[in-house]
């Protein structure tokens, strides 16, 4: 008995006030003594095994996450400026970074830049949301129904390897130069990748969760809602992120080829317009805008969601 008391006092340490432990030891009631002993010991074990995760200081975040890409961008700009200054190409073929900046600045002053971005972005977001609505049930069916998987599983992954630009001619023939053409291309690009992401997410669900769910009474639709879908969420979010990248790329391909005044001026059409005018600063400026919007959505929307999902499940701390 005395050895147990010693262990309990040692183990609990700072977690439990010594006075409490002493009071418990002094108790004459053997049963109560044993009960409080075991609670002290388990509280001590919990205190010993619980790790506190410290937040990374802001300065370290800056030096490890923010600084490296900034240096990389500065290097690219320096090489570019050097190539321009050394006259490697004619200035109208290779404009300087400043020329491109001025082109962006002019567009800003003309007030067109935001409307051009908005035209493309609204299409991209709407196309992506429709793709989610279509891709999610397809993914669930393929993941959970064996005949469906055997039938369209390979086609679904095969579709992902077709560059979306290949769909543009077909879409133009079907729908003419209309918004329908653009959305068709976006959907054909994004739906397979969202569906495949969900399939991968469901496949990675550990069987023990499904068994545990069944013993708790989560069967059928309740099992899908309370166990399968939440367990598949990390893969699904990764699929959504990839689906957005596919949406955006497909959209640019569609806008670039199927450009018509009736369709309004998006980033892809503006790229084609600048090429027709041999406006190299305008071409590069538009490419930069396409890049910024694509990355911006990923950084501002998908990365925080993905990080939240992984962090709450304890899947992120090990990778820090």
């Amino acid at each position: 008995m005395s050895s147990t008391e010693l262990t309990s006092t040692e183990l609990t340490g700072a977690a439990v006030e010594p006075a409490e432990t002493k009071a418990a030891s002094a108790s004459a009631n053997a049963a109560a003594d044993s009960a409080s002993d075991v609670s002290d010991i388990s509280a001590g074990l919990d205190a010993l095994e619980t790790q506190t995760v410290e937040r990374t200081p802001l300065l370290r975040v800056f030096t490890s996450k923010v600084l490296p890409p900034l240096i990389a961008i500065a290097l690219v700009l320096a090489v570019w400026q050097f190539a321009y200054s050394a006259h490697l190409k004619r200035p109208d073929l290779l404009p300087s970074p400043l020329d491109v900046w001025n082109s962006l600045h002019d567009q800003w002053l003309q007030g067109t830049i935001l409307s051009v971005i908005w035209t493309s972005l609204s299409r991209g977001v709407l196309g992506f949301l429709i793709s989610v609505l279509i891709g999610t049930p397809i993914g669930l069916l393929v993941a959970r129904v064996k005949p469906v998987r055997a039938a369209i599983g390979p086609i679904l992954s095969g579709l992902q390897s077709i560059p979306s630009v290949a769909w543009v001619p077909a879409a133009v023939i079907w729908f003419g130069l209309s918004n329908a053409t653009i959305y068709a291309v976006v959907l054909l690009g994004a739906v397979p990748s969202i569906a495949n992401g969900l399939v991968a997410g469901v496949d990675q669900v550990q069987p023990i969760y499904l068994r545990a769910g069944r013993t708790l009474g989560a069967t059928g639709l309740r099992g899908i809602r309370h166990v399968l879908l939440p367990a598949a969420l990390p893969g699904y979010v990764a699929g959504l992120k990839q689906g957005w990248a596919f949406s955006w790329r497909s959209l640019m391909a569609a806008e670039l080829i199927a450009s018509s005044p009736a369709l309004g001026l998006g980033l892809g059409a503006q790229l084609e317009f600048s090429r027709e005018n041999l406006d190299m600063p305008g071409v590069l400026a538009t490419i930069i805008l396409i890049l910024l919007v694509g990355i911006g959505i990923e950084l501002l929307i998908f990365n925080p969601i993905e990080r939240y999902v992984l962090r709450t499940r304890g899947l992120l701390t090990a990778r820090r």
Partner: protein
Amino acid sequence: MTALLTEATPVVDTAVRLDHVTKSFGRAAAAHVVLDDITLNVAPGEFVCLLGASGCGKSTLLNLVAGLDQPTSGTIDVPGGRAALMFQEHALFPWLTAGQNIELALRLRGVPRGERRAEAQRLLELVRLGGAHGKRVHELSGGMRQRVAMARALAQDAQVLLMDEPFAALDAITRDVLHEELIQIWQETNVSVLFVTHNVREAVRLAQRVVLLSSRPGRIAQEWAIDLPQPRRIESAGVADLAVEITDKLRGEIRRHVQH
């Protein structure tokens, strides 16, 4: 101190009844018999340990009682409706907090929304984790996870708690503490426990009755009633003496599998 049960005493009131249960996998001639003619009764509030070496079909038997699988022949009766099952892995859902895991079990049982939070808190306090409601699973230690898993199993309000080597993955110190807590919870809730293990001392430490299964196929080899008073200590002489006796018998069962 111990009595050898030669014949299973007829039990009128029962929490789990297995009647000539056989389970085989595969078809016809190639069928592989895992459990052979198991007849076992667990009385309400009784604590029974199923003990056996690898291949004795312990986990298969629990799956059958939990209703996750069907016997090839024989009948299984759980008069209380259904049994709660605890695994060797905690199997807590990592997308929920500790408290939400328990609340989900309550919700699936049909407990109204307004009562779930308080009931989950009561169960967490029962396993001495009153402050862990908002903790994520990965923030808990191995022992804490198994205690939350125990609370989640209790949340099903089943009359029978099936435990499939729930402490096998824990370190010895934590396991010892959890043994004591399990016994206290069992005494407080009066639930029937069917506990599977390959650890003889653990079986003697916990159970009122130890059932030894032979391996390939799993058959009931022998039963021991244990009337050592609780709380027991796993290092005590009484536990050790009986553990020696049961281990000898277990080794005898294993020796039968030597290929000549």
